[in-house]
């Protein structure tokens, strides 16, 4: 341990995949962020924006093309074999699908004890049993003695996700990477899982990289939010700042569809029809627009008469703090951001 305040430091992460016909898919194109001890950082964006690729890179389930991933003072970027496995004890992942991520033929106990066996944790079966029951209790799978013996098919979606969480915390990780952990659950079960995640942060001090497409959920769960568009972070700030004073037109669009407003999109004055929230499809990472990646769909670009700089120059993340605020950093990558209030 170096005593660094961060459990994770990601610098200039680039992940490119070879596409068809020699095209390069720029899934992640220069992303940097830190996660402090006990912090919940949310990555928010649409499908295909690269947020899951970032998660897989952090877990080193794939090798980035360039950039560094530092955890606990150790550079994970090029670790292999035993050293990588040891580093992974500090980081665990929870996936979206609680129906696919558990082995149907393993009891809850067998699923949760497996990481302990893989990492050789616990001196005896008894000690491991104590650790598993404790993890189940932490995950509110109660009574743990009874639930340890059941199979996944006997559990609801929410309970299965609790088993996945128990398997993640049994090793005492510093960081949990949670990729859309509630989006496949019933609305009534979601709040319970989100509360559990926050509760574990408060009780165990675990940090989270929380991947979601739902800005409203990120707002209530995370300390800070990074909005991701086509492989780049376009806006970064505390959850309060980002929602109260969004600076990037894309963040504003996401807010307008996540707000629970009665009316989405704008009414066309001629036809009376509701217009699309954002015109067009999410451009593909295999065919990234020039300049600002967002300009073809950007309402501000259209409003300002298509300024050339948006097509020509790639905006970088710049600090744009509220007047009088010096401690909380709010960054935006836009040539014409909303003015801070």
């Amino acid at each position, binding site marked *: 341990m170096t005593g660094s305040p961060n459990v994770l430091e990601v610098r200039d992460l680039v992940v490119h995949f070879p596409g068809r016909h020699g095209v390069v898919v720029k899934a992640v194109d220069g992303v940097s962020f830190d996660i402090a001890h006990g912090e919940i950082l949310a990555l928010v964006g*649409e*499908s*295909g924006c690269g947020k899951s690729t970032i998660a897989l890179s952090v877990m080193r389930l794939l090798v980035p093309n360039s950039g560094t991933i530092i955890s606990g003072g150790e550079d994970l970027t090029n670790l292999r074999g035993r050293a990588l496995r040891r580093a992974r004890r500090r980081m665990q992942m929870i996936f979206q699908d609680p129906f696919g991520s558990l082995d149907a033929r393993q009891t809850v106990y067998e699923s949760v004890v497996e990481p302990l066996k893989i990492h050789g944790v616990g001196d005896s079966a008894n000690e491991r049993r104590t650790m598993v029951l404790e993890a189940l209790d932490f995950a509110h799978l109660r009574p743990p003695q009874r639930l340890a013996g059941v199979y996944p098919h006997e559990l*609801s*979606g929410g309970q299965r996700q609790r088993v996945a969480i128990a398997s993640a915390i049994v090793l005492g990780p510093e960081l949990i990477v949670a990729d859309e952990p509630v989006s496949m659950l*019933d*609305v*009534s*079960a*979601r*709040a*319970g899982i*989100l*509360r559990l995640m*926050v509760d574990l942060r408060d009780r165990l001090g675990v940090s989270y990289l929380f991947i979601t*497409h*739902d*800005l*409203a*959920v990120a*707002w*209530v*769960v995370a300390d800070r939010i990074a909005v991701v568009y086509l492989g780049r972070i376009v806006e970064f700030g505390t*959850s*309060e700042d980002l*929602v109260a004073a969004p600076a990037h037109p894309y963040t504003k*669009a*996401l*807010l307008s*569809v*996540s*707000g*629970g407003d*009665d*009316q*989405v*999109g704008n009414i066309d004055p001629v036809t*009376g*029809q*509701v*217009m*699309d*929230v*954002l015109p067009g*499809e*999410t451009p593909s990472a295999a065919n990234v627009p020039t300049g600002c990646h967002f300009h073809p769909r950007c309402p501000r670009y259209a409003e300002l008469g298509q300024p050339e700089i948006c097509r020509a120059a790639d905006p970088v993340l710049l600090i744009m703090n509220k007047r009088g605020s010096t401690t909380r950093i709010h960054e935006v990558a836009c040539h014409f951001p909303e003015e801070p209030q």
Partner: protein
Amino acid sequence: MSLLEITDLSIDYLTERGTLRAVDCVSLSVERGESVGIAGESGCGKTTLGLAVPLLLAPNATVATGSITLDGTSLVGLSEKAMDPMRWTKVAFVFQGAMNALNPVHRIDHQILEAITTHEPGIDVGAARARVLHLLDAVGIAPARASSYPHEFSGGMRQRAMIAMSLACRPRLLIADEPTTALDVISQAQILSLLNNLRHAEGLSLILISHDLAAIKRVCDRVVVMYAGIIVESGSTASIFGTSGAAPSAAHPYTQALISAHPNLHGTRVLAEGLSGHPPDLSQTMIGCRFADRCPMVMEVCHKVAPTLVTIAPGHVAACHLVSGEAS
């Protein structure tokens, strides 16, 4: 006369564990041009209710009681041969995950054309082709993309193509089961605006089945909340959610829990309590209120007497002892 009239409908599934009543004595009507949302958790019976209308229930399901009348025709007990011409032309169904039901080896426009020519055998091919382009245009797919293969479309576009296909034979009623669940927020908003536009432009009636009350709030005139096979609350969207600015006036604790489950960006930054526990086992005989075991406001009477739907405002009914005043 309503376009769709469902009266006292009960549907049983025959399972290994015995008979399971998925829909229990449900009555519901949909007017022409009206959109009705059916909300509830997985297993509450909302999909079974939706599938019953075009008679698409699983083989082990039977209609135990009640009637379904669509545009003057009584549907329960109708033969396949009699029902078939009404599917697509009178009622169309968009399944959950429908976007994955497109045939991967045929072009989108070809698939929609096939739907038209199959159901309207005598139709002029030129006219059918024109209708395909019109339908795709209505769902926001440009003619240049019409002859793409499904894999060339994003999830949102595939879902829009499926909605275009469901409208191929100009149905009067569209039943959409979780049409936006697998999509991300921007695509969800686009599909919901699309359904809204189609409803107004084509005079379509819509049943939107969803666990997402925010989606229902955006599109529907009326909301029906189901729990464990029965309707626990129903009313106009304005009266269930409250008009903008005012507090929601949902009366049933279950509806209230569903509404507060999703964080509101205009509200306070707190996580909802959520509901613990599960809906009851439908194969068991139920005494008292079906929601009693999970209800934060449960009273003694709730475990003994089943509440019935009572009117609490014009067109707004709820089945809860708190509103029917049986507690006193």
